[in-house]
């Protein structure tokens, strides 16, 4: 049996697992974690096969392409499949302890495995209508999981999430119907060959991107995300923030690069980039102002999704070649880094919440100090969210800054710099409270004369010398390139 004909495994394995845990609710933890191990192995196996043999594709049912449904795994799918496999395994192992002795355990496992099957299904689908079915399964299981805490806020937030998700799916489906009416096929590969610039194609592009942007919580359509993610149980928050919103972005990137290269233009890319910039600034600002740790993490997701959209105008403005490939790779790296970082952050925040009994940042005072590994996890994830070296998002931002300089779109640099500064502020705000046993003073400066010199020196080293390094070259009388 060839690797191509087994492409369905990452979908079938978690699906079968979901059926088993539904039928045997008493042993759901054991069965669930076994299914999670198998699902993870299936996903990583397809990633490895793609790594070894290049792009894989198969058509189910033996009917050939226009009639059957195609599955495809290329590098982009494989990378996200690896993320969902590893992050999913981490969430599963964490969930055993988190839900231990609770009746919610029997509800968590079937929905989580269905969610996992639909995630992998989205990454492997090569058919526009099949993607719609996957998005339905994804949205429904995600909203049900988010409401597992059973609190009034959680149910209200996730009902809104469900309705918003349905609106997004229907908008997407409208575009699929238009494309099918115009071109008579649903396969992404065939469709991209037939697609011509026309009012129909442009409308389909706008509808698809708008529907998916709603699901990806792109600013200003992010309003549903913070309450839904902040009120879910910790393993679910991790899955929603790290994986679920990422699938919508993955689809936008996939359609942008593979389906609509003839239609998508710089103006559309600029609009998405501008919304992404809004997301970076607004999301980071709200994260800084958040009172609760999980709300902070949720707003941080809004901001991080914004960075991913900043890549689109840069990719669009770069001619095909190594520079464009670098940008695409950096964009995917950013998405994956955020997936791991945010999953880790939410899981650690869940531990803090269980230990302290709440997750109000101002009152964490030392609660995290008794859990060094958890606090260190938050710090590590925070370093990736800020984009400190050697995290993946540092590399991504580096490439993004290079791309912005090369394509002359300097205005994105301001957004990146401001977003990074705000991210540093909200992460250190958490860490500061986590380490401080004493009540923190009310004002920033307690002894201005003594503190200001130290502050200014540090600020010079941290900000001024980096951003204003240019004059040093002329001072030293050296020519040579700096950015």
């Amino acid at each position, binding site marked *: 049996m060839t690797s191509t004909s087994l492409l369905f495994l990452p979908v079938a394995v978690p*699906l079968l697992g979901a059926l088993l845990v539904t039928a045997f609710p008493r042993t759901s933890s054991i069965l669930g974690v076994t299914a999670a191990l198998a699902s993870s192995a299936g996903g990583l196996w397809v990633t490895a096969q793609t790594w070894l043999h290049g792009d894989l594709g198969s058509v189910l049912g033996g009917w050939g392409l226009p*009639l059957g449904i195609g599955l495809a795994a290329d590098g982009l799918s494989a990378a996200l499949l690896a993320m969902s496999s590893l992050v999913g395994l981490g969430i599963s192992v964490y969930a055993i302890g988190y839900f231990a002795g609770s009746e919610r355990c029997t509800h968590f496992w079937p929905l989580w495995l269905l969610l996992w*099957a639909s995630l992998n299904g989205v990454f492997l689908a090569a058919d526009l209508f099949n993607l719609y079915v996957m998005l339905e*399964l994804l949205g429904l299981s995600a909203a049900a999981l988010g409401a597992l805490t059973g609190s009034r806020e959680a149910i209200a937030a996730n009902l809104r999430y469900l309705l918003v998700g349905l609106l997004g799916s229907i908008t997407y489906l409208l575009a699929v119907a238009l494309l099918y*009416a115009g071109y008579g096929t649903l396969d992404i590969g065939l469709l991209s060959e037939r697609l011509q610039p026309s009012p129909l194609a442009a409308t389909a592009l706008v509808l698809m991107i708008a529907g998916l942007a709603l699901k990806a919580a792109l600013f200003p359509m992010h309003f549903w995300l913070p309450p839904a993610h902040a009120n879910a149980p910790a393993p679910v928050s991790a899955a929603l923030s790290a994986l679920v919103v990422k699938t919508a972005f993955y689809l936008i990137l996939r359609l942008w690069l593979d389906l609509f290269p003839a239609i998508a233009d710089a103006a559309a890319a600029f609009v998405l980039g501008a919304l992404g910039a809004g997301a970076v600034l607004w999301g980071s600002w709200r994260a800084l102002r958040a009172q609760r740790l999980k709300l902070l993490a949720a707003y941080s997701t809004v901001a991080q999704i914004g960075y991913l959209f900043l890549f689109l105008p840069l990719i669009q403005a770069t001619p095909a070649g190594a520079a464009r490939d670098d940008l695409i790779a950096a964009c995917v790296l950013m998405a994956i880094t955020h997936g791991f970082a945010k999953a880790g952050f939410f899981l650690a925040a869940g531990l803090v919440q269980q230990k302290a009994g709440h997750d109000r940042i101002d009152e964490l005072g030392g609660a995290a100090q008794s859990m060094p590994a958890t606090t260190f996890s938050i710090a590590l994830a925070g370093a990736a969210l800020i984009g400190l070296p050697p995290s993946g998002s540092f590399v991504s931002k580096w490439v993004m800054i290079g791309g912005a300089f090369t394509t002359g779109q300097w205005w994105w640099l301001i957004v990146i710099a401001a977003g990074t500064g705000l991210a540093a502020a909200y992460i250190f705000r958490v860490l500061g409270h986590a380490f401080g046993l004493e009540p923190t003073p009310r004002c920033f400066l307690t002894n201005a004369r003594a503190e200001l010199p130290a502050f200014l020196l540090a600020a010079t080293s941290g900000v001024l010398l980096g951003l204003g390094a240019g004059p040093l070259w002329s001072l030293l009388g050296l020519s040579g390139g700096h950015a």
Partner: protein
Amino acid sequence: MNRDLSLLIGILVSLFAVLLLWIVYITLSAETGPRLATLALEQLPESGVSHPVTAVLLNYRAYDTLLELAVLLAALLGIWSLGPAPAGFQLAGPALAVMARWIVPLAILTGGYLLWVGGHAPGGAFQAGALLGSAGVILRLAGHPRAGLPSEEAQRWLVVAGVGVFVLIGLLLAALGYGFLTYPKAGAKWLILLIETAATLAIGATLAAAYVGGRPLGAAPPSTPTPTEDARA
């Protein structure tokens, strides 16, 4: 909502609808390429069934249908996760009770007919399952606390049966070398019928259980007296 705002939204939505209609008009009036419908009809004799809709749902695009069944399952699991079902409605009056006694067996019988006829005429698992589900709704309205469904344990098996049989047949075919959900021509008809039968039961049970609106009550009837029993006492 502000009246001006609703007016503005109405105008915008109307403009959008006009735009969509215009696009559909110019698309359909232009020469369209090859359509899938012709291809689907051409391949129909190979598909094991003689009705094109069933061929699309259970053969050409069986993978989509498998996942649609999983969507139904996810919806029911979501409902179950929200808490136990509310107590049953009060027992039906004589007219409703007689009607339920007539309609429920008829609905089940018609469901079986629709399942079988789906192979060559409009019908199939979703229609048959919907009828079974409606039989459950009538039972619940007539006062049956579990809408005619068995115990929670049996319900769990019923609702996973559709996806379960579907995915196991798919995996078995893959293991035999045909490929996932790729039926051999000789057995296609019977495999499709087997999948549809399981799907009918699962859809019917899922819809009825969804109408009950919460996790099934225990195997024994609830020990707390329902309002009806109070009324009769």
